[in-house]
């Protein structure tokens, strides 16, 4: 399956891109995707304090991904 990963703010600077596609085995979890991102873009692109949203909802690390999911890496937020 294939998911789209979005990078925002400081994470975009780390990753050097605002978007990337990842091919994963069926049943892959968020944790596995994070590992794949680190492998391709470097460990800096997935700091320990990253939160993850799948299809615009915050999810936990053990969430299973589906083909076509929009996955966003969410740096610490600073609105207001």
């Amino acid at each position, binding site marked *: 399956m294939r998911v789209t990963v979005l990078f925002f703010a400081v994470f975009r600077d780390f990753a050097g891109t605002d978007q990337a596609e990842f091919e994963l085995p069926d049943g892959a979890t968020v944790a596995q995707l994070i590992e794949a991102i680190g492998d391709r873009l470097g460990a800096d692109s997935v700091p320990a304090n*990253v939160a993850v949203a799948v299809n615009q909802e915050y999810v936990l*690390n053990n969430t299973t991904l589906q083909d076509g999911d929009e996955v*966003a890496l969410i740096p610490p937020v600073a609105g*207001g």
Partner: protein
Amino acid sequence: MYCEIVNQPIDVAALERRVRTNADGAVLTFSGVVRDHHEGRDVESLHYEAYGDMALSKLRSICEEVASQCDVTDIAAVHRVGDLEIGDVSVAIAVAAAHRDAAYEASREIIERLKREVPIWKRERYRDGKEEWQEGYPVDGGR
């Protein structure tokens, strides 16, 4: 209920008019304003970036949850993104309620949750020419 992410100036008075009804005894309006300093550094301007659709849906769900917890009649909450100057309003929250307790409680809860949950980021440009993403709040329930 009115929630929006905008890239134009926020009209705070219009938000206030939007929420007020004849059943309300209290209207509370919070404006977050771009300050000329942050942690001892002189700020020249700010850039706000949002994960647009998610920021709006998150802001809306916060306002809905707070409305269900506090006895308010209406809420309007708007966050601005893009380039902002000193003195510009970055966020405004208007709450109307029959009684002031609920208005204060709801207003405070919305701005606290907004700052911790809504995917918006702030890049500060300092007077010395440097720029930096401002350190934010790690979102709970993440990795």
